[in-house]
C-alpha cells in the first residue's frame, strides 16, 4: 500500500495525527527531541529508536536517563508505553491504532496490578454482554 498520506490526493487521515502523537510519546519516554540537531547523529527519533531496538542493547536504554533505575513495575509500564508509541509510528497508516485505542492501551498500562504479571493465563477477551 502507498504510504503517502499527504500530497495531491489530500488523503488526510486521523492516522497522521496518530503518527505525530507517537513521536511525542517517544520524546516523553526518551527525553530526546524529534530531531536532535545538536547531537552528531542528527537522526530522526523514530529511526533512532528502531535502530536501538534492533541492536543488542536492552530496550531500557531508550528511556530517558532520568527514568532509568526506577522500580521494575514502573520500568515495565514505560516499556509497555514504548510499545504503544511504536504501534503509533508504524510506517503503514492502516496498521496504526486509532486514538481511541491508544487511550485504551494507555489506560491498561496502569490498570493491571496483579493479573497479567502473576498468572500467565491465556488471553481471553472480556465477554460482551448487552447491558
Amino acid at each position, binding site marked *: 500500500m502507498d*504510504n*503517502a498520506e499527504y500530497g495531491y490526493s489530500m488523503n488526510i487521515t486521523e492516522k497522521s495525527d496518530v503518527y505525530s502523537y507517537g*513521536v*511525542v510519546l517517544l520524546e*516523553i519516554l526518551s527525553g530526546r527531541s524529534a530531531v536532535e540537531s545538536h547531537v552528531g547523529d542528527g537522526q530522526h527519533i523514530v529511526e533512532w529508536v528502531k535502530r536501538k531496538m534492533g541492536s543488542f542493547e536492552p530496550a531500557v536504554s531508550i528511556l530517558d536517563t532520568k527514568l532509568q533505575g526506577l522500580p521494575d513495575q514502573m520500568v515495565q509500564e514505560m516499556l509497555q*508505553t514504548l510499545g504503544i508509541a511504536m504501534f503509533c509510528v508504524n510506517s503503514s497508516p492502516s496498521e496504526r491504532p486509532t486514538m481511541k485505542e491508544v487511550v485504551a492501551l494507555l489506560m491498561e498500562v496502569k490498570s493491571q496490578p496483579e493479573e497479567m504479571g502473576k498468572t500467565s493465563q491465556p488471553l481471553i*477477551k472480556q465477554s460482551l*454482554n448487552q*447491558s
Partner: protein
Amino acid sequence: MNKLTGSIPPQLSKLQKLTSLLLWGNALTGPIPAELSNCSSLVIFDVSSNDLSGEIPGDFGKLVVLEQLHLSDNSLTGKIPWQLSNCTSLSTVQLDKNQLSGTIPWELGKLKVLQSFFLWGNLVSGTIPSSFGNCSELYALDLSRNNLTGSLPEEIFGLKKLSKLLLLGNSLTGRLPPSVANCQSLVRLRVGENQLSGQIPKEIGQLQNLVFLDLYMNHFSGSIPVEIANITVLELLDVHNNNLTGEIPSVIGELENLEQLDLSRNSLTGEIPWSFGNFSYLNKLILNNNLLTGSIPKSIRNLQKLTLLDLSYNSLSGGIPPEIGHVTSLTISLDLSSNSFTGEIPESVSALTQLQSLDLSRNMLYGEIKVLGSLTSLTSLNISYNNFSGPIPVTPFFRTLSSNSYIQNPELCQSIDGATCSSSLIRKNGLKSAKTIAMITVILASVTIILVASWILVTRNHGYKVEQTLGASTSTSGAEDFSYPWTFIPFQKVSFSIDNILDCLKDENVIGKGCSGVVYKAEMPNGELIAVKKLWKASKADEIVDSFAAEIQILGYIRHRNIVRLIGYCSNRSVNLLLYNYIPNGNLRQLLQGNRNLDWETRYKIAVGSAQGLAYLHHDCVPSILHRDVKCNNILLDSKFEAYLADFGLAKLMHSPSYHHAMSRVAGSYGYIAPGKSAQLSLLFLNLSYILLTKSMPLICYLVLLV
C-alpha cells in the same frame, strides 16, 4: 486479535490434547469444522468476532469437557443444536450476534452447570423453554433482540442465582408474574420492547437487589405500585411507553439511588411529587407525554446531578421556578415545551451556562429573553409560540438561529446592541434594516479612520504627499494597525472589553512567538489571566477572513479538559486576536528540555491527557477534526501538569501563499510528519496545521462525561 484469514483447518482436530482454542478477533471465514469435535480435551473454544458462516456442528455434543463456547459476532445460521445439551461441563455459552434461527432447544435445561447463556441479536423464535428453570447455576440469561413469543416462564424466577435477565426487544406476551419476587438474586430485570400486559405486580418491591428495572414499550396498565419504592438500590427505572394511569406515587422519592427515571408516554395524572427533590444522584428525569398538572416543585433545586429534564407535553402550569437556575448540572437538555407555563423566564436561568438544548415552545411565557444570551453553550433553542417581547440577544449563537426557533412571539424584535429594538416590525424587514444600519456604521467608521489616519500622517510629516497616504494607509501599517472598529466575539461570558485586551499587547507581555503570531499574557481588570494570540491577517482576500471567522466560531464550541479553551476572538481591519484560557506551566518541549527531574507518573499523565484530547477531536466530533500539528510545543501544561492541546484552527489563515512565515513552521514540525513518498508536498500541507475537514457542515462534539 490478529488478521488471520481463510477457514479453520479441520486438521486441528488431530490435536487430542488441545485444551484451549482461541481464534477470536480475526477475519476467519467458512464453517466451523465438525471434525473439531474430536479434540476431546477441549475446554475453551473461542472463535467470536470472525466472519464464520454455516451451522453450529451438532457433533460438538461430544465435547464433554468443554466449559466455554464462544461463537459471538459471526454469521452463523441454522438452529442451535440440541446435542449441546450433552456437553455437560458447559458453563458459558455465547452465541450472540449471529443469524441463528429456529427455537431454543428445551434440552439445554440439562446443562446443570450453565452459568451464562447469551443469545441476543439472532433470529430465534418460539418460546423461552421453561427447562431453563433446571439450570440452577444460571447467573446471566440474555435472549434480547430475537423473535421470541409466548409468556415468561415462571420457572425462571425459581432460579436462586439468576442475576441478569435480559429479554429486551422480543414479542413476549402475558403478564409479569408476581412470582418474579422469588428471584431475589435479580440485579437486572430488563424486559422492555415486548408486548407484556397487565399490572406491574406489587411483589416486585421485594426484589431487594434490583438495580435496573426496564419495562418500557410494553402494554402494562394500572398504576405504578407504591411497593416499587422498597427497592432501595434501584438506579434505573424505565417504564416509558406503557398504558400506566393514576398518580405518580410520592414514595418513589425514597429511591435515593435512582440515576435515571423515565415515566414518559403514559397517562399519568396528578402533580410531580415534591419528594423528587430527594433524587440526589438522578441525571435524567423524563416525564413527557403524560397528563401531569400543577407546577414544577421548587425542590427541583436539589437535583444537583441532573443533566436532562424533559417535562414536555403535559398540562403543567405556573411559572418556571427560579430554583431551576440552581441545577447547573443541566448540560444536555431542558424541555418544558407544550405545557401551560406562564410568567417570565427567571433571571437565575442565566447560570445554566453548560446547557446545550432548551425548549420552552408552546407555553404562555412572556417578558424579555435577554437572559438567554448568557446560555453560552446552547446549540439548540426553541421559544416559539409564547408571548415573549423585546430584543433578541446579539450573540454568535442567536445569529445562527433560524426564525422558526422564535416564531409566534409577536413582540420580539431584532436588535443591534442587544438592549433596544432596531425594528419591531416583521423579522425580514428587521434584518434588512439591521444590515443597512450596520453597513452605514462601517462606512462611517472607515471614513473616520481614513481621515484620522491621514491627519496623523500629515501632521507627522509636514509636506508629505496627502494623496499617497490616503490610498496606502491601510496596507502599509499592517500588523500594528489597532484602529477601530473592532469586532469582539466572546464564546462565553466575559468581564473585560476590547480596550482591556489592547492595553496588554505590549512587548513585555510576550510569552511566545510562532509562525502564526505572537502570544501575549494578558491580565484583565478582575485579575483573570488570558492568553492573546495576535495573528497576521491574510492579505486582502476577504473570503478567507470570513471562513476564518466561521471556523473560529465552530472551535468555540469545542469543550474538553485536554483542549485549550478558545474564549473568543477580536478583529479589526488588519489584526486578528484569539483569546484563550491562560495555561500557566509552559509547553511540553520546555518541560522535557528543562533540567527538572520529570518523574514517570507526570510523564504518563501528560501522555494520557494529550491522547484523550486528540481522541476527542477524532472520535467525538462530527465531522472529526484533525489537529495536523501534534508536537511537544503544542501541548501546554497547567500547574498540575494536566495536558492541553493548543494551537489549532488557523488553517485558512496560513493557507495564504504569500504567507512565508508559514515556511518557518516546516522546520518546527519536521520530525512529526508521517513518512510518505511525497514528503515535499506534505511539508506544504503541514503548514496549514489543522484543518477542519468540512467547512459547511455543522460541527457536533459530544459532551464527554468524565467519570
